[in-house]
């Protein structure tokens, strides 16, 4: 299989594919040798060949270590990717999730054998409900977009039960995340895109024009994707409720509001959270995430299954009561949940049903709860305050040398625009982004939201120090200054990375999506 030359193995060249490394028969002995498959099944049911490489463990370790070194993460540097909340991922979270008792627990383990996992789910759910002002959450959906879909399915079923199937319109501001309209379409709703006003917000007057007895849901995020707080949210919610519609809160920006303002108090009936953003779950290169869906009291019955049910423990259960006493004497705080027993509740006739194979991304629930413990209510409030402080600090400094189309107090992120710079020099937002890579930083989100031309959406997060922010500001200033003097330098970026700009047209026109044997 292997026909590599010394050139292929040179430093800095792309590492060979794992398929080009192996030699048949170079096996690792992780399990016993198996008998020939024909002893167990007729040959007609078996595959002819299994064309996979055999690699030594050392080769595999080197291969993936090399791949890791060609990958940029938060652990390597500043990651101001707007709308993605790339904050530090505390290692205690992973250590707790990796505990054998959580990691090796099979999902069909009976309730009485999985009380710890159920307690984690219960505590997390109750804490989220309080923090965001919702009656209840389901931890079932796998990610933000998945929870959005669950929320819209809840809305659809709710209206169907009420005989209001005429409600087929979902209102989505033009600043919304792309998943909002895509999720609405997956529920058969028609999407009405609502333009933002000159303040970058949804206007009460404009939304009233599109509201009617065909309004199902209004999907909003607050702060919105421009980083601005929708200060008329209660009036918007009242108007939507007035016509019998539901308010949906996209929780992608929840890092800006904890302990400050709650979706429930703003009038939202449905919401999702991206626990991987706000609650420090490693993004892992694009997932797995975790996306609980939350609802107000009138929608609780519709939540996806299962939900965790809790009951006070029987008083006669003396052994466990003693355990609890010992636990508290050992310095472990005795939470109310320590005196309860838990079960998974699947018997919910009005539920929209399950969204995924098994109950929840429980390993992530452990991580999120660990983060909740580390902060408490006061700590979470502080998290949001400092996220907003960091964003505004960067915003006022960046305004010295780049346009900021909405020059007012923002929340956890803000948008800058390279439109003027592009007109003057030809240097685009993309070029600035690529140039940041040369300085050991991730680029901000680019060209989103769609209403700001040459947009750079910057979210520093609260875990970054003032020194890091000052360095970022200095680098960005230098890039803009270079663009004005020698634009071609910026347009050539990046030059320090393992590859330069990639030919995306070729990738799309001549798709090569897998390795094939020669």
């Amino acid at each position, binding site marked *: 299989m292997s026909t590599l030359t010394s050139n292929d193995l040179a430093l800095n060249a792309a590492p060979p594919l794992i398929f080009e490394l192996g030699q048949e028969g170079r096996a690792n002995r992780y399990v016993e040798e198996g008998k020939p498959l024909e002893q167990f*099944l007729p040959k007609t049911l078996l595959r002819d060949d*299994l064309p996979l490489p055999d*690699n030594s463990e050392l080769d595999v370790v080197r291969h993936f270590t090399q791949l890791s070194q060609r990958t940029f993460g938060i652990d390597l540097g500043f990651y101001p990717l707007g709308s993605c909340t790339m904050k530090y991922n505390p290692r205690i979270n992973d250590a707790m999730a990796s505990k054998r008792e959580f990691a090796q627990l099979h999902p069909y383990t009976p309730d009485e054998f999985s009380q710890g996992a159920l307690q984690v789910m219960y505590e997390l759910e109750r804490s989220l409900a309080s923090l965001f*002002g919702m009656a209840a959450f389901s931890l079932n959906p796998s990610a933000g977009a998945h929870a959005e879909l669950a929320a819209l399915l809840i809305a659809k079923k709710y209206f169907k039960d009420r005989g209001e199937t005429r409600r087929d319109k979902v209102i989505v501001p033009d600043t919304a995340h792309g998943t909002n309209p895509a999720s609405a379409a997956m529920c058969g709703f028609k999407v009405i895109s609502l333009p933002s006003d000159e303040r970058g917000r949804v206007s009460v007057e404009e939304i009233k024009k599109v509201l009617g007895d065909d309004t199902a849901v209004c999907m909003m995020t607050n702060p919105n994707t421009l980083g601005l707080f929708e200060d008329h949210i209660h009036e918007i919610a009242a108007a939507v409720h007035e016509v019998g519609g539901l308010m949906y809160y996209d929780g992608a920006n929840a890092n800006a509001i904890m302990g400050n303002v709650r979706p429930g108090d703003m009038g939202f009936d449905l919401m999702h959270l991206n626990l991987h953003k706000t609650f420090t779950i490693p993004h*892992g*290169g694009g997932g*797995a995430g975790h996306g609980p869906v939350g609802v107000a009291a009138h929608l609780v019955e519709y939540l996806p299954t299962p939900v965790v049910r809790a009951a006070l423990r029987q008083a006669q259960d003396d052994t466990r009561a003693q355990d609890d006493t010992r636990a508290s004497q050992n310095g472990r705080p005795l939470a109310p949940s320590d005196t309860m027993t838990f079960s998974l509740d699947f018997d919910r006739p009005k539920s*929209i049903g399950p969204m995924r194979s*098994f109950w929840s991304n429980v390993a992530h629930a452990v991580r999120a709860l660990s983060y909740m413990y580390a902060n408490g209510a006061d700590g979470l409030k502080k998290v949001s305050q400092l996220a907003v402080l960091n964003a505004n600090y960067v915003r006022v400094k960046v305004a010295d040398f780049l346009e900021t189309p909405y020059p007012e107090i923002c929340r956890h992120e803000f948008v800058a625009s390279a439109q003027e710079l592009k007109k003057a020099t030809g240097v685009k937002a993309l070029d600035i982004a690529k140039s940041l890579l040369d300085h050991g930083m991730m680029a901000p989100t680019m060209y989103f939201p769609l209403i700001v031309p040459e947009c750079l959406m910057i979210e520093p997060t609260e875990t970054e120090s003032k020194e890091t922010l000052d360095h970022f500001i200095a680098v960005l200033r230098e890039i803009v200054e270079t663009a004005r003097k020698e634009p071609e330098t910026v347009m050539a970026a990046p030059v320090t990375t393992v590859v330069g700009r990639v*030919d995306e047209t070729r990738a799309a026109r001549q798709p090569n999506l897998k390795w094939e044997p020669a």
Partner: protein
Amino acid sequence: MYTPHTQADIRAMLDAIGVGSLDELLAVPDAVALKAELDIVPALPEYQIARRFEHMAAKNTGVDAISFLGAGAYRHYAPPAIATLAMRGEFLTAYTPYQAEVSQGYLQAIYEWQSYICLLTGMDIANASVYDGATALAEGAIMAINANGRKKLLVSRAVDPNYRAVLKTYCDGLDVEIDELAYTAEGTTDLAALKAAVESKQYAAVALQSPNFFGNIDVLAADALAAVRESGTVPIAVISEAMSLAALATPASWGAEIVVGEAQSFGVAPAYGGPYVGFIAATKEHMRRIPGRLVGKSVDNEGRTAYVLTLQAREQHIRRERATSNICTNQAHCALIATIYLALMGKTGLRDVAALNLERSRELATAVSAIAGVDLKFATPFFNEVVVDVHQPASAVLAKLQERNILGGVDLGRFYPELSTCILMNATELTSSGEIEALATALSEVVHVHANV
């Protein structure tokens, strides 16, 4: 916690912004201001967080029981090298590789994952992963609906009940109807009924699982495949035990156009249900309908090999309500784990694991069916799990086994009222002969005590 700000920093930054206090910075209209007291456990120092989780972890006693649980989540050996590599901070704390120049490593790993899935399934293309097996089925069904515009699906009752339930959740949103195909006395899909059903040419797709939920090998026979093709129905193969791909004839070889499944078996921890990693593979005709991320191989501006996210015009961030799916997050990190697992095991290791699963599950089947009053429900070739009929309520038998610290399997009555005396039992390479003996001894006692009552 995890905020580095000194009081002096905060003061200096507030001054730079020109506001007096953090409260002023986060001012909201009084109508929406937070007035409630938050009901959240007070902050704990890190050593107490660790103690608290130890306390809860100790209540997950199921991990120390003898277990024959499978049914869509499987216990397989995962070499420690996986965690060492996958938990490297560069992988763990990266996000979606939008900036290809600083994401070459992850992009290459995903390209390798796509290649592995194609090699294992025999298909032309595979995406960068979806949430799990059930959502893979739902997304695969949407691909078929988009391919031929039909609004009805045909699904075997031998497909994992959880997958079918999720498919129904999605279909309620899409206003798509689902008809189910019965299984036969052999515990496989009724192919005669399938042939008759597709004649109506109303189904977008027909979905079969192999090994099916009962563990039985359940594929389209040639005549059934011909009828499916003739009717313009898209054949979808569902794989919930990916380890079977190492041994069994590929879904491509029996005619699947779309293969959806769960790759948890490849080194991903059971973790009480997640996160796992779904995959979608298909023939190249479906390339522009496949949901989620795709990584392609290209070159950079100097002609060097380079990987990049491609065909993004299908995706929600570009196409919004006209996208092929709303999916944004994939399961990159779980896919990375699976890729490392496959690299470590290799052809030889995977074949060994598959053979050991076949062997131990047959040992299990032989041991339990030797007990008077216990039978195998079906006499059909199976992979690593088997339906055991105890001829009395399975739930009661399982409860008695639990008292002996044995998790005997999944009560099929939970999903199939007609199988309420049946238990789905699984054995893998990790199941020892001693455990099988312990189960057989306990089951023999439990069944006879019950029978005598």
